[in-house]
């Protein structure tokens, strides 16, 4: 289709922080009629300066701001920081703590993927059905976490040296119950989203990201795996108990919005299997190693990599022997995916109505991009 070479009269729309589609950020779109020429993501609306705050918090206090970086999968964020602190202190959590950590991280992953389902459905106007089903299913998981850790969202349950306390008795079969209920619910998601003709019309072939583009632009998480690259930190560099849990890395080849949705869907199935394995045969033993309240690691640096629901989080801690870390560098997954979103306008032809679908197929969480 030959595009007329006339200078298109560009109108710049700004979907500001107050907009049903954009979360806590501003998306500037250069539009000519319905065709999108340029996308600009104006981040920084939720910049709380976490890296500066962590410099005057002790190692144990630092867990609270880090867990608020991405409230939907708090455990993964907290685990990234805790693994780096443990590497700096040179301590090893006991076996049972590792298994509990994996279970909590998988529960948070499902929690976050439900958020992605809901918003991708809402971006196509599928508001009533799927978006609010996710809140129902998330309540099941939140009740589980409330029973284990006492809090619904930010648990502070994973601490350097292991886990705060052991599983309450009867927790394992509560987990099994929840897993069976969720399995039944997720078939409905599959029918409601992937097999719905209108939804497929809106999502198939939209925002295609080929394999080389995904690697070159630094995509991560389901966005990368949706384009056929099987990079998953849980397999490349097994942490917590992922070394001895069997699960497979899910990839889809097309790289469009529907493929990213399918990747998230199959990842939830994998997470449910992992949770079932942990609930089934978790080893006994202590839950925590004794760690002083104000640890002082020797000077040096430690970097940890964790596979959060949105991608690979890297926490790089520089220590100078004091009670507080000298500098904490956080490599946030959403910042990388937001750059991929900005480049989408150049990769293919996008209409105004596709922008929300692409944005929510990338499942951004602006708080962890702005830190």
């Amino acid at each position: 289709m030959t595009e007329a070479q006339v200078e298109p009269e560009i109108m710049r729309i700004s979907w500001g922080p107050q907009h049903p589609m954009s979360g806590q950020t501003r998306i500037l779109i250069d539009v000519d009629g319905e065709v999108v020429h340029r996308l600009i993501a104006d981040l920084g609306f939720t910049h709380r300066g976490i890296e500066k705050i962590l410099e005057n918090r002790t190692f144990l206090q630092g867990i609270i701001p880090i867990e608020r970086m991405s409230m939907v999968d708090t455990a993964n964020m907290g685990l990234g920081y805790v693994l780096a602190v443990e590497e700096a202190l040179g301590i090893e959590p006991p076996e049972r703590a590792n298994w509990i950590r994996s279970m909590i991280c998988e529960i948070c992953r499902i929690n976050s993927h439900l958020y992605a389902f809901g918003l991708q459905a809402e971006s196509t106007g599928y508001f009533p059905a799927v978006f609010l089903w996710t809140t129902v299913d998330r309540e099941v998981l939140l009740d589980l976490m409330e029973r284990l850790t006492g809090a619904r969202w930010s648990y502070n349950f994973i601490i350097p040296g292991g886990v705060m306390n052991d599983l309450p008795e009867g927790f394992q079969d509560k987990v099994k119950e929840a897993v069976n209920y969720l399995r039944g619910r997720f078939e409905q998601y599959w029918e409601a989203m992937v097999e719905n003709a209108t939804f497929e019309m809106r999502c198939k072939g939209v925002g295609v990201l080929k394999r080389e583009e995904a690697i070159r632009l630094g995509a991560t998480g389901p966005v990368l795996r949706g384009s056929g690259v099987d990079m998953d930190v849980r397999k490349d560099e097994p942490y917590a108990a992922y070394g001895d849990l069997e699960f497979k890395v899910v990839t889809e080849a097309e790289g469009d919005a529907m493929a990213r949705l399918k990747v998230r869907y199959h990842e939830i199935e994998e997470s449910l299997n992992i949770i079932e394995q942990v609930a089934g045969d978790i080893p006994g033993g202590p839950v925590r190693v004794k760690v002083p309240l104000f640890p002082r690691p020797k000077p040096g640096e430690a970097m940890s990599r964790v596979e959060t629901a949105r991608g690979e989080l890297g926490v790089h801690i520089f220590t100078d022997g004091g009670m507080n870390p000298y500098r904490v560098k956080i490599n946030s997954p959403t910042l990388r995916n937001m750059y991929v979103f900005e480049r989408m306008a150049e990769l293919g032809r996008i209409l105004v109505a596709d922008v929300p679908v692409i944005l929510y197929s990338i499942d951004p969480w602006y708080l962890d991009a702005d830190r």
Partner: protein
Amino acid sequence: MEMETTVKERIFDRYHIPKPIYGVLEYIVAWARKFSIWPIHFVTGCCSPEFMQVSGSRFDMERLGVLPFASVRQCDCIMIVGVISRKMGERVKYLYEQMGEPKYVVSVGACPTGGGPFHDSYSIVRADEIVPVDVYIPGCPPRPEAIIQGLMLLQEKIKREVKIGARGG
């Protein structure tokens, strides 16, 4: 912008309606405003999943008539959900000025109320530094029941406010 607490002219003084009819009309206006608070679809910080759970199926805030609405013109309540960074603070001020007159602000969570876990950060603004706040809801993140209790407090405030005419129609 401190709130004048003196008794201003009541709503219907302007229309010179005879005194006895005041009570009935004001009761109706208070009842109408109480039951249809339309907050803006605007979440500023990390309590946003909790706000979604409250508008979700288990703790349904639409029971109270609270329906999140898209555009700022039709809304009459900003729910500041979560931490406000300095850049977001200006946007909250713009929104507050664009809204129609009977407007209310609910500050959800510890961060807008008093800074919460980020109290000593260089890029944090508290809610009452930028807009007059009506209801503060503590908690980080506050439980859904707390948010709904905050909304009920707002409804109580609306009912009392129409009587003393603090915020004219």
